[in-house]
C-alpha cells in the first residue's frame, strides 16, 4: 500500500467544496438553471475513494457527480461550462449538471435515473473482465438507490461472474425528504451486499483517511481477481437535496450534529462562505488534523486556499466566456450516431 499524502487529500476536499460553492453562487445568480445537486458534506467520500483510482479505472456516477468528475481530473472549467450549457462543457452542453461524461478520463457519466449506475457498472465490469484487463469499475450511488431492482439484480450478477466492480454507497441517510429508516427495512446497507456474498464494509464517510484506506484495500482485492467489493460510507449532505429543496424535513439539530462530528478547534479564516455550511464539517476536521500532525501550517493552508480560489475563479471565467452550442452541429452529432447503413444489404460496402 502506498502512503497517502494528507495534504493532497485535503486539497482535493477543498477543491470539491470550492467547486460546489461556486456552482451554488452561479445558480443563485440565475446563470445555472435546472436541477443542481450539490456535494458539500460528502467530500471525504469522493476524495478518499478517487485518490485510489488508477487512470485505467472507470467511474460511474449519479446526478450528484460534479465532485466525482473534478477529482477524476476533469478540469473545473469543463464542468462549469457544462453546468452553464456551453459548447466547451465536458458533454458539449448537451448533458447539463446531471450528465457529465468524459470518455478520455473513463468517466462513464452521471445518471439521473436512480439505480442506473448499477447496470452501467455491471456492463463496464463485464467488458473489463471479458478482455482480462487489470482495471476496476467504481460505481457510486446513494442510500436511496439500493431499493431499486437494478441494485439487487446487478449485485447478483457481479458476484456470480466475479466482475471487477467497487460498489460505493454514499449513505447520506436521505432519499430526498425520506429518511433511511422510512425507506429501508435494513438500514445497514452493507449487509445487503453480504446477501450476495460480496465482501462489504461500513466506514465513517466523514473520515477521509478511513475512506482512503478502505478503498485502497478493496481495490487491491478487485485487482487481485477477488471479484466485486462493497463499501458503505456513512456521510451527510449539508444542503438540501438540490438547490430547489430547502430541506425543511431535517431537524436543525441533526444537521448541526453532523457538522460538529468530532469537536474541533476553529481554524482561522472562514473556509466556507455559505450559510448552510458552518464550521466543523468533514473538510474542517481534516484540515485541523493536518495542522495538528504538522503537515500544514496556517501559511501553507492559506496558500492552498488562495490557489484553489484562483483555480475556480479562472475556470468559471473561462466557462462563462465560452459560446453556446449550436443546433445544427448537435443534429449532426446525433445523426453521426445514427448512420443508417445497410450492413448486409445490397448497399453495404
Amino acid at each position, binding site marked *: 500500500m502506498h502512503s497517502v499524502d494528507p495534504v493532497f487529500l485535503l486539497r482535493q476536499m477543498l477543491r470539491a467544496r470550492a467547486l460546489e460553492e461556486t456552482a451554488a453562487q452561479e445558480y443563485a445568480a440565475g446563470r445555472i*438553471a*435546472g*436541477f443542481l445537486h450539490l456535494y458539500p458534506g460528502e467530500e471525504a467520500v469522493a476524495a478518499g475513494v478517487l485518490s485510489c483510482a488508477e487512470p485505467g479505472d472507470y467511474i460511474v456516477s449519479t446526478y450528484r457527480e460534479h465532485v466525482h468528475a473534478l477529482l477524476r481530473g476533469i478540469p473545473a472549467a469543463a464542468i462549469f461550462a*457544462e453546468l452553464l*450549457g*456551453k459548447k466547451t462543457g465536458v*458533454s458539449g*452542453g*448537451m*448533458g*447539463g*449538471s*446531471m*450528465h457529465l461524461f468524459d470518455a478520455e478520463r473513463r468517466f462513464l457519466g452521471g*445518471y*439521473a*435515473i*436512480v*439505480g442506473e449506475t448499477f447496470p452501467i457498472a455491471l456492463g463496464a465490469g463485464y467488458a473489463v473482465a471479458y478482455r482480462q484487463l487489470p482495471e476496476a469499475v467504481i460505481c457510486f450511488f446513494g442510500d*436511496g*438507490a439500493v*431499493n*431499486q*431492482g437494478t441494485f439487487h439484480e446487478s449485485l447478483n450478477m457481479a458476484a456470480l461472474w466475479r466482475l471487477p466492480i467497487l460498489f460505493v454507497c454514499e449513505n447520506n441517510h436521505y*432519499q*430526498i*425528504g*425520506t429518511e433511511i429508516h*422510512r*425507506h*429501508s427495512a435494513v438500514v445497514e446497507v452493507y449487509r445487503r451486499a453480504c446477501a450476495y456474498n460480496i465482501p462489504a464494509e461500513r466506514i465513517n464517510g466523514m473520515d477521509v483517511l478511513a475512506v482512503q484506506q478502505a478503498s485502497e484495500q478493496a481495490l487491491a482485492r478487485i485487482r487481485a481477481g477477488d471479484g466485486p467489493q462493497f463499501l458503505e460510507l456513512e456521510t451527510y449532505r449539508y444542503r438540501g437535496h438540490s438547490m430547489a429543496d430547502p430541506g425543511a*424535513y431535517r431537524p436543525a439539530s441533526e444537521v448541526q450534529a453532523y457538522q460538529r462530528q468530532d469537536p474541533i478547534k476553529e481554524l482561522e479564516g472562514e473556509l466556507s462562505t455559505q450559510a448552510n455550511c458552518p464550521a466543523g464539517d468533514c473538510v474542517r476536521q481534516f484540515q485541523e488534523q493536518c495542522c495538528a500532525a504538522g503537515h500544514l501550517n496556517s501559511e501553507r493552508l492559506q496558500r492552498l486556499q488562495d490557489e484553489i480560489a484562483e483555480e475556480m475563479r479562472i475556470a468559471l471565467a473561462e466557462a462563462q466566456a465560452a459560446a*453556446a*452550442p449550436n*443546433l445544427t452541429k*448537435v*443534429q449532426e452529432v*446525433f445523426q453521426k450516431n445514427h448512420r443508417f447503413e445497410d450492413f448486409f444489404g445490397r448497399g453495404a460496402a
Partner: protein
Amino acid sequence: MTEMLYWQALNRALDEEMAQDEKVFLLGEDVGLYGGTYRVSEGLLAKYGEWRVRDTPISENSFTGLGVGAAMLGLRPVVEIMTINFALLALDALINMAAKIPFMSGGQFSMGLTVRMPSGVAKQLGAQHSQRLEHTLMNVPGLRILVPATPQDAYWQLRQAIRSDDPIIVLEHELLYFHKGEVATNATPLPIHAAVVRRPGRDLTCIAYSRMVEVALAAAEELAREGIEMEVIDLRSLSPIDWEPCIQSVGRTHRALVLEEDCRFAGAGAEIVATLQERCFYFLDRPIQRTAGLDLPTPFAAELEAATIPNVERTCRSARDLVKMSGAPL
C-alpha cells in the same frame, strides 16, 4: 368558483375523494412527509395517516405493481410517479399488469388504479428528465390517458379517474403546476374523455393537449391580429380520443394543424393526423400539418432546449403557411 393553482386543484381533488371513499389511498416517493415534489399531496399525511398516504422507497415497478395488486382487491390506489421519466421503470406494472389483468381475467378483476405523473419538458432538466412518453402509453390497449391543461380539468378529471374501474394515467405537466385558473367545484363536470373547443375560429383548427393548449391559445391571439381566426381544440384525453369535436371543427374550417410537445416521429400527432385524414379527408382543403418537438433527446443548453419544442412563433408560422398555402387541394 374559486381560483386555484393547478397543484392545488389536484390536491383538492385527492382530498375530496379520500374523504368520501376510504378505499382511496396514495403512494409514491415523498408524497407524505414532504407533501409531493409539486405539493400535490400536501397536508394529506397529517389528515389521513400513513396507511392512506404512503411514502415509498425508490422502487417504481414494485410500488406501481403494489397499486395493481391492491386494486385487484378492490382498493382505489392513486400512485404518484415522481416524473414520467421514472415511469419507464414501472412499465411492466403498467403495461403487463394493469392494462392486461381486467382483460385476461375474463373481466373477473377490475382495476380501479390511478397513476399520476408530471410529464413534458420543464426548464433545463436534461435529456433524462425532459421526456414526453404519451405515445408509449397510448399504444397500450387497456390504459386510458388524461392530459388536463387547466386547474378545472385537473380537479375534475382526477376525481373522475379515481372513480373509474379502469386503470387511468393522468399526465400532468411540469410547467402547469403553478398556473392559476377558476375551478368550479360544484359544477357538473365535462365527461372524462371529452374534447372541447377552447376558442372558436373559422380559418383553421388547431388540435392540442396539455401545455400546448396554452401555446395554441396564445398563437390564436396573435394570428387574430393578422386576421387569421384559429379554432383551438383541447383534447383533454389521449386515450380514448374524442374525435367528434375535431371532425366537426375541421368540417367548418377545412384546415387542421396538430400541435404537440412530443417528438414528431410516431408521436400522438401521427395518430391524430392519420385518423383525421380517414374521417375528414373530403372536408380538407390542405394536407393536415404537424407542429411538434424535434426528433432529438432534449439538449440541456437553454436555447437549444427551446429550439426543440414548439412555441407560439412556430405555431403561428405553421398556421400562416397552412392558411396561405396556395394551389388546388391535393
